[in-house]
């Protein structure tokens, strides 16, 4: 992209400029939990106007590190230097007072307030008599949103927004007071392509204004696009700090300690495809978010659905699973016309749906991983029955752990204890606990590191090879191109383009995202 070219000279000048005083310096930061050391004496210099990428697998210590920079966590050892201050941050408020703002993956939004109210929360504009100025808050929010180029309705209630939009509200909040250091934790994980571009533009502008930025991402292609410097963490240790132009495979080797070839596995050849499992003819939902969708999905086939957030791709998957009313067209599973009013009917007919937001829709976090895995198999799987059979269940758990590469020994722990990658594996394991022919995956790799991503992709390809028909809904275009036999683009609730593998062209596919 052209923007990367613009960034290149800056990068080369920024890297060897030791005389610039760092905006923030971390010295010997340590964090111990009992006998476990999450972070070992990490040093970090973040210069003003630098986009510093933190890179590492889930559990490498990135989250621990940024939580201490943002004041959400107190280091066991070491200190921070910011401006004239030396010490640690005891609270998020203290970190903010020193100009450090963080956007975490866990949002700090009040769901029942509007976007505008959330943006001005804590710094509400006042009208006469010290009353709240609602119009002031709205104007300020609108100005900010327009300035950032986000597509966001400032009057919408946050709880009504999709995750990606909520993420944008969070970013608006963080940059509203021009921070000295901005921390972004996987900001694009749930953003659409368009909003991600707007975010990159914002990051470049903040950078030009001298803001230091720490950026965590698992998307390799973003690193040269936006970063200046990359710090790689592994097992809580600082491994290396290298320029962002470092080749991908070198970065992955640094991150994992081993070399990783292609992260996309081979998918079964088109010639091996079986009969049509799922047919949509002119499917239209009652709420009008999906209009006249047509699709043939064959056994062994992976069909990708691409498009912006809100284009109807998630809603299409939900409609096939009985989560959205269908007002027109037909849905056929194995050539039988079907209408589902509850997911139980869909699973019974042979459809499985894996939701995009594992914490909200996918997992009971305080329950053991094993219970989450086998939940629906008690109704539809091999051990269906009113009484539990612990031995049969244990066998199933053992099989599932093997299939998704999950540590069996830890399956008794609550899912909430695990990293994002392992949580996602539990979610995927749920789908394997019973026999179904059609799988719908909505964002199966959101917010997981490259290592876990690779095993998820292998899982998808094995699933297809075993004869399952897979509908893969994703906002990650490279992932769709790497894994699917065919790719459909949705826009405004309609399917607007179809591409065959072999004719994939990122630029041309992206053009169909926008009118």
């Amino acid at each position, binding site marked *: 992209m052209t923007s990367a070219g613009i960034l290149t000279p800056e990068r080369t000048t920024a890297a060897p400029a030791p005389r610039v005083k760092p905006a923030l310096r971390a010295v010997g930061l340590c*964090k111990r*939990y*009992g*006998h476990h050391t999450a972070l070992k004496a990490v040093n970090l210099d973040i210069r003003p106007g630098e986009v510093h990428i933190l890179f590492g697998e889930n559990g490498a210590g990135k989250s621990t590190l940024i*939580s201490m920079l943002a004041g*959400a*966590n*107190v280091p*066991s050892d070491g200190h921070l230097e910011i401006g004239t201050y030396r010490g640690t941050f005891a609270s998020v408020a203290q970190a903010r007072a020193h100009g450090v703002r963080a956007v*975490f993956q*866990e949002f700090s939004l009040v769901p029942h307030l509007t976007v505008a109210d959330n943006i001005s929360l804590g710094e509400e504009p006042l009208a006469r008599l010290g009353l709240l100025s609602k119009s002031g808050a709205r104007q300020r929010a609108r100005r900010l949103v327009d300035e950032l180029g986000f597509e966001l309705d400032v009057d919408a209630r946050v709880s009504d927004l999709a995750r990606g939009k909520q993420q944008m509200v969070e970013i608006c909040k963080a940059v509203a007071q021009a921070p000295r250091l901005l921390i972004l934790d996987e900001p694009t994980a749930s953003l659409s392509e368009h909003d991600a571009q707007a975010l990159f533009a914002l990051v470049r502008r903040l950078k030009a204004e001298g803001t230091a930025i720490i950026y965590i991402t698992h998307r390799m292609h973003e690193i040269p696009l936006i970063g200046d410097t990359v710090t790689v963490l592994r097992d809580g240790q600082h491994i290396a700090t290298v320029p962002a132009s470092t080749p991908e495979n070198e970065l992955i080797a640094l991150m994992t300690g081993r070399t990783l070839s292609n992260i996309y596995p081979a998918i079964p050849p088109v010639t091996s495809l079986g009969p049509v499992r799922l047919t949509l003819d002119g499917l239209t939902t009652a709420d009008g978010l999906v209009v006249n969708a047509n699709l043939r999905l064959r056994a062994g086939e992976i069909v990708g659905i691409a498009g912006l957030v809100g284009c109807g791709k998630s809603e299409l998957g939900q409609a096939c*699973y009985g*989560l959205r009313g269908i007002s027109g067209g037909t849905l056929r599973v194995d050539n039988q016309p079907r209408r589902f009013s*509850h*997911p*139980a009917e*869909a*699973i*019974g007919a042979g459809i499985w*749906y894996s*939701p995009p937001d594992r*914490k*909200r*829709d*996918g*997992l*009971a*976090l*305080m*329950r053991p991983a094993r*219970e*989450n895995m086998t*939940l*629906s198999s*008690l*109704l*539809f799987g091999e051990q269906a*029955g*009113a*009484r*539990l059979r612990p031995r049969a269940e244990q066998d199933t758990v053992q099989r599932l752990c093997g299939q998704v590469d999950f540590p069996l020994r830890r399956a008794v722990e609550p899912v*909430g*204890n695990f990293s994002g990658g392992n949580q996602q594996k539990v979610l995927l394991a*749920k789908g394997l606990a019973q026999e179904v022919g059609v799988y719908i995956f909505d964002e199966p790799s959101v917010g997981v590191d490259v290592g876990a991503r690779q095993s998820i992709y292998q899982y998808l390809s094995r699933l297809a090879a075993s004869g399952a028909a897979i509908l893969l809904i994703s906002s990650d275009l490279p992932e769709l191109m790497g894994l699917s036999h065919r790719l459909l683009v949705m826009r405004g609730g309609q399917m607007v383009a179809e591409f065959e593998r072999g004719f994939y062209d990122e630029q041309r596919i992206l053009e169909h995202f926008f009118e």
Partner: protein
Amino acid sequence: MTAPNQTASATAATRAADMTASPGLLQRLSAQRQKLVLPFLFVGSLLVFAGFAPGFCTLDNVTNIARQSVYLMIVALAQMIVLIGGGLDLSVGTVVALSSVVGATAMAAAAQVLPDSPALAMAAGLAAGLACGGAVGFLNGVGTAVLRIPAFMMTLGMSSVVFGVALLVSGGVPIYGLPPQFGEVFGFGYWAGIPVPVIIAVVMIVLTWFLLEWTRYGRHLYAVGGNQRAAELSGVRTQRVVIIAFSLAGALAALAGLLLTARLDTGESNIGATLPLESIAACVIAGVALTGGIGRTLAVAFGTLLIVLVQNGMNLMQVGAYAQTMVIGAILIVSMALARR
């Protein structure tokens, strides 16, 4: 959810590390404090009462505690089932009153019609009482699961409705005319040297434990309480699960009401007022999460025993009834503070 939790315990741990040379034990205790609250309070109060309450450790008193705890035990099981499913039942107290009044009325009427077969009269009364409780629970379930009324409001409102019905049926006066065998067996009877109500309570504990740990329904209940949306997407009929949970709770509360009726030998509309608070306290002390998804049967049984034990011990130490009420509330608050997650 985990992040602030980690932060809090980690901060506490750091502080502990600063104070002592061997942080391992303290740190582990702090991390496990949720699980340690109940055993700590239980053993602590046992020791205190054994030392200061005259006659606390006698066999008579132990039997007494077992017998006194029956009613709260069964209601606490009811409360636990609802709490695990993500609900809350504030109507358990008035359901106890309703089942007492309705059960006694039906039983007395049947005894008049069939004076020669008290067993049949008792069966009619028990059935009527249990059906009432189950029906109230069913309505609570429909209100929360289908109409999406918060359980707090639904059961609080229902509690008032049910109390009104109980007063209406009884006219506000005790109901007499129960077959004498009812009290003899279910109130004061012994079987193999153990009071019959205690046996019934133990059977209920076992049945509840079996339901929660060994059946698909139990697993679904934990899942619905843990994440209702995730359970729904896994094919669980979550509305049905919630309605069944409330109905079971209603029936259990009614059983407690009927056993209490047998003990009192009359149907009363003014019993059970303290049960909502005490049953919630028994559950919370036992680590049942008010947000749903977590709770163990055996722990709740011990939580109940703890509350009855404290009441019994204070009685022996001749602490006044007013002070006792204060202590029960304080225990609830302190145990919440200790177990805060």
